[in-house]
């Protein structure tokens, strides 16, 4: 019989090693080491055929390049596109989540599942569907010319709004779900109290429901903003090379231009934005929670 673990004493070292060892080693080798590599690459020069030319010594050029108007422009474009997408998702997602929370109990689950269902299909195919809808010979243009609203097809595909639409389509459920759970949790007695005290529905909404659901709003915004910012598939397929986001730049630096050091700088810039965002969210969450 094996020795017994003492109830009060520390657990045996062997159990600790067997349980924690494999997973932590895996993460150390295939997560921390790759991230450390990217950080390290940023100070070196690119190799002639990709990779890194360590023999050329270190440099600060890669960081300087990010201030080049061309690349800085891509970064601000990405932030703008992700922000507009998030705002639209909130404007459509909030009233949607609110409507679901007002449905009779048994319909709520059905309504939520219907919001999430398209999310469980292939991401690329969902994006491709918008090519079929928006292209010059696509469904929308055919319908509009068919009923005589326009003479010539509109340029819908390969525009920035098409990219925003594609991102909105991809991530809208990530906005609706946290909003729904926040709205659902608002204590109905608070709403009754507000009504009993003579507040009209709009007033009750503004002073009770909305403040209580702000943490859900923050979560939903982060859930939409983060994947939108790093996406390169939607800008490529629906932006057609005219709309370039930071994800496309990173992809190109690694797979086409073979400039891994600069690609690493761009990846770190992307992560820096996200860390700032999460810190802002945590700060705002504390402020809201502290009231």
């Amino acid at each position, binding site marked *: 019989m094996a020795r017994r673990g003492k109830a009060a004493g520390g657990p045996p070292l062997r159990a600790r090693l067997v349980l*924690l060892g494999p997973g932590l080693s895996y993460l150390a080798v295939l997560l921390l080491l790759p991230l450390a590599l990217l950080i390290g690459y940023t100070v070196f020069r690119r190799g002639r055929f990709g990779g890194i030319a360590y023999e050329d010594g270190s440099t600060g050029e890669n960081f300087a390049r990010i201030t080049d108007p061309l690349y800085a422009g891509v970064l601000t474009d990405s932030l703008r596109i992700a922000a507009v997408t998030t705002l639209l998702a909130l404007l459509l997602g909030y009233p949607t989540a609110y409507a679901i929370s007002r449905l009779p109990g048994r319909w709520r689950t059905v309504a939520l599942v219907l919001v999430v269902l*398209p999310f*469980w299909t292939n991401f690329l195919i969902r994006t491709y569907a918008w*090519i079929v809808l928006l292209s010059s010979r696509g469904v929308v243009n055919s319908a509009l010319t068919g009923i005589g609203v326009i003479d010539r097809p509109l340029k819908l595909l390969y525009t920035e709004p098409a990219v925003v639409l594609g991102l909105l389509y991809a991530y809208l459920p990530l906005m609706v779900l946290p909003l729904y759970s926040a709205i659902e949790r608002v204590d109905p007695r608070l709403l009754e109290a507000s009504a009993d005290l003579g507040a009209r529905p709009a007033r009750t909404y503004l002073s009770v429901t909305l403040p209580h659901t702000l943490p859900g709003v923050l979560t939903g915004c982060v859930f939409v903003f983060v994947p939108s910012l790093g996406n390169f598939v939607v800008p490529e397929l629906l932006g057609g090379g005219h709309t370039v986001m930071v994800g496309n730049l990173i992809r190109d630096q690694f797979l086409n231009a073979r400039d891994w050091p600069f690609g690493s700088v761009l990846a770190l810039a992307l992560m820096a934005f996200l860390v700032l965002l999460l810190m802002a969210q945590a700060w705002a969450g504390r402020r809201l929670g502290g009231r």
Partner: protein
Amino acid sequence: MRRATLLPLWLTYAFLYTPVVVLVVMSFNRSASPYEWSGFSTAWYGTLAGDDEILRGLANTLIVAAGATALSTVLGTLLAVGLARHASGSRLLPALSVLPAVLPDIVLAIGLLAFYSLVSATLGLHSVLLAHTVFGLAFVTAVVRTRIAHVDPSLEEASRDLGANEVTTFLRITLPTLAPGIVAGALLTFTLSLDEFVIAFFTAGPKDPTLPIVIYSMIRFGVTPEINALATLLLAVSFTVVIAAQRVSRLTEAL
């Protein structure tokens, strides 16, 4: 309930389902144009069934998803139990364990590409499998940890007091009580791996593309209603699985 409140819900459904309906309808189009309707046909489903590239992509995807799920489930379950029982004071280790789930996929993708190139590893299905295990491990750990929070540790103590050794206690007490969480984590990993494109795109190498990579090149280089047929089939499978899962969870709730 007022109609005005429901209006945004209908708007959202119209937005979400219009593309889905168009995809499905166009998969039965006779002509080769993915845009113009020219009569009903199921020919593209036949083309699809004979498309070796897609079938190989599907096989590759299933291999990767199955392998990554198995590996993630073992590593993630052990890690979750370890974190709960032997690292409860640490804040760093739990944060590390969820990092792959919150990291932008493109950052993980290029990091792993850099790593594989550093160790001169050949790229193939194995490199995608190992890459998918990084985020799979994070999701399994997270799901199992939420389950452990609801498990009474005195059961494990009782088992040890009754003379069972650690391995027996783990196999007969810990694992069975965690089973629902382990299954949920495994299903989540499998689903995410099936659909994962960005990391696979960077780590797959040219010879063995997974299905999302095949779909990507079809969309970029030659669009025929064949892709609509594929989309319709994938939609049908996803919808069936989601509805079945919903039924099962309602059944288990009822029990």
